[in-house]
């Protein structure tokens, strides 16, 4: 865990000042402090049933955030990811009664496709990713609304194919969160051990150098967006399972907490700095914060303000100003 939270990219470059180390460790310190504060307020906060509830809420946010991490590492952003997860719940609700378990495989593949499509437009047409994905956001939400006639579709026939995601427990813990955490760990290990594992970081830090040394930055960029799409689809599976339904806006509200999770975990939106383990810490902070706020009596209405402030605040702390040219 501690090894993972070290700033991979800075160590890779061979310089890591004390300030950098402090900022890198900050998310973990914040998480521990948050848990301590909330536990002091609510002694049963770390009790089994409470942790179970926390983890159930964690799964979709973490999946979305891991997907976003791939894109943010390259220095881009995918604003359409939450809408894509909504779309995937609609597709599931429409297809589960027809083709059963096949839909469980088909839907993430389709969202992988939407991600790849986004990546292709960004890479080939060379349009900034936030504009492409803003457009994609409108496109996919329009498609989801049209397919579902703008209403929530209850899943009854064929539900058993996704029911296990919500019902199954391993050692008393929900399987959805365990899978999500496992995926974060797998991705982090892959980044660390594979010979080409740091390609995404390199892409964020020095895209031109990567290109000049013979890599296809186009393919890397497209792959990063593809991963984001795939994980959005996985988040859609969890959402559809826990809500017993598909809805055209079901995942939309997760956009802000998921982006907040990525940036508060210490991933720099300028790219190159961060990784899935940082995202895991960030997602845990968001979840504990959400529960903690209501525990200490802050009304749910303030949640949005907190997310907004976190996004701006965390970006201020993690952004790498030395590599910023003109900021638009």
């Amino acid at each position, binding site marked *: 865990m501690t090894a993972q939270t070290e700033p991979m990219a800075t160590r890779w470059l061979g310089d890591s000042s004390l300030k950098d180390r402090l900022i890198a460790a900050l998310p973990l310190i914040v998480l521990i402090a948050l848990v301590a504060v909330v536990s002091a307020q609510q002694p049963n906060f770390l009790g089994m049933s409470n942790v179970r509830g926390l983890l159930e809420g964690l799964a979709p946010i973490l999946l979305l955030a891991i997907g976003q991490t791939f894109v943010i590492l390259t220095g881009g952003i995918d604003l359409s990811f939450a809408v894509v997860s909504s779309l995937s719940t609609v597709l599931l609700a429409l297809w589960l009664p027809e083709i059963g378990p096949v839909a469980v495989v088909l839907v993430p593949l389709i969202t992988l496709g939407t991600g790849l499509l986004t990546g292709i437009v960004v890479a080939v047409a060379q349009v900034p990713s936030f504009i492409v994905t803003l457009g*994609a956001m409108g496109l996919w939400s329009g498609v989801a609304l*049209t397919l579902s006639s703008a209403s929530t579709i209850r899943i009854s026939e064929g539900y058993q194919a996704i029911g296990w995601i919500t019902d199954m427990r391993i050692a008393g813990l929900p399987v959805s969160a365990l899978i999500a955490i496992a995926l974060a760990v797998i991705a982090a290990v892959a980044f660390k051990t594979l010979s080409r594992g740091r390609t995404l970081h390199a892409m964020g830090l020095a895209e031109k150098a990567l290109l000049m040394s013979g890599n296809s930055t186009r393919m890397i960029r497209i792959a990063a967006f593809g991963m984001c799409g795939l994980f959005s689809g996985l988040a859609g599976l969890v959402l559809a399972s826990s809500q017993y339904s598909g809805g055209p806006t079901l995942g939309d509200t997760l956009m802000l907490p998921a982006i907040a999770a990525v940036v508060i975990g210490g991933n720099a939106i300028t790219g190159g700095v961060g990784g899935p383990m940082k995202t895991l810490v960030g997602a845990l902070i968001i979840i504990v914060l959400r529960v903690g706020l209501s525990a200490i009596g802050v009304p749910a209405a303030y949640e949005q303000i907190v*997310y907004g402030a976190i996004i701006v605040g965390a970006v201020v702390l993690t952004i790498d100003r030395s590599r910023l040219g003109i*900021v638009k």
Partner: protein
Amino acid sequence: MSRSDLVSSAPGVDLRKIQRLFGTGGPLVALVVLVAFFSLASSTFFTLGNGSSLLTQLSILLVVAIGLTFVIILGSLDLSIEGVMASSSLVFVLLAANDRNDSDLGFLAVIAGVLTGSLFGLLNGVLHVHLKIPSFMVTLGTGAIGIGIATVLFGGRAPRLMDDSLRDLGFGSLGGIPKLAIIAVIVLTIALLVQRFTRVGRYGYAIGGDEQVMKLSGVNINRYKVLSFVLTGTASGIAGVMAALQLGVGDVTIGGGYLFTAITAVVLGGTALVGGIGGVGRTLVGAAIITVLANGLILIGVNPYVQVAVQGLVIVLAVAVTGWSLRKRVRAIK
């Protein structure tokens, strides 16, 4: 250029001036074609009643899109529009005579609502310029804050506006023209003047075109960038108040959908998202196209959600097409 100079030096209508203000022919032709098409396709489209509802629909979108034009010309973006509209609508309704509290500030409440928008714009500008955060990221955050503040003020039930003279602004009309449309025309006029005759307006183009050059020429670009964001915020504030006037309530979702439509309107009008090219006059044409399209498609029975999808495609296509020639093998676009 020289030939059109000769043409425009002829007495009579100055074509070039019109072009510079409202864009080249494309969007205008599209607008005329759309109007002609829907007039033929639907018997209710080209009627007085629909004309007045078209104007009402256009007015709020126009104000939002005009505001947005100022930051898009910088090459930046403001995603906080919907949140700002929500906050300013609630601030306005809660300070005017309403069914929630005893406040009755009348026109001062309008000013407070608009200033709420300006404050958001100032916050956006300062965070973006001085902390060097990309504008879309800042405004993603502040937009959430705006929705949050609105949710807190909302308190579970939409406060209703009870001030009769203010409500008349939202429902009434003057000589057949909705009063909201008159407000929009006033905003448009002011925006045209600001863009053509003030430093914020004129430097905006130069900053969007090449920021470095402006900086080297000794212009305090930070100030003008912040001011542009304030203009956008103010317009969103006005739009929030207008929406509250129109619906008679303050609501968290009052700005829902406007961000998207406004960006599409700006882009369709011919203002480039890369910055430096365009103007509020062109945005008028873009907003009119969107409004005619939205209204006409519903009249001939097309699912309104298809429009959201189409708008998304339009944004991507417009940017991809305008930037296609700038593509380079070694260009790093994030």
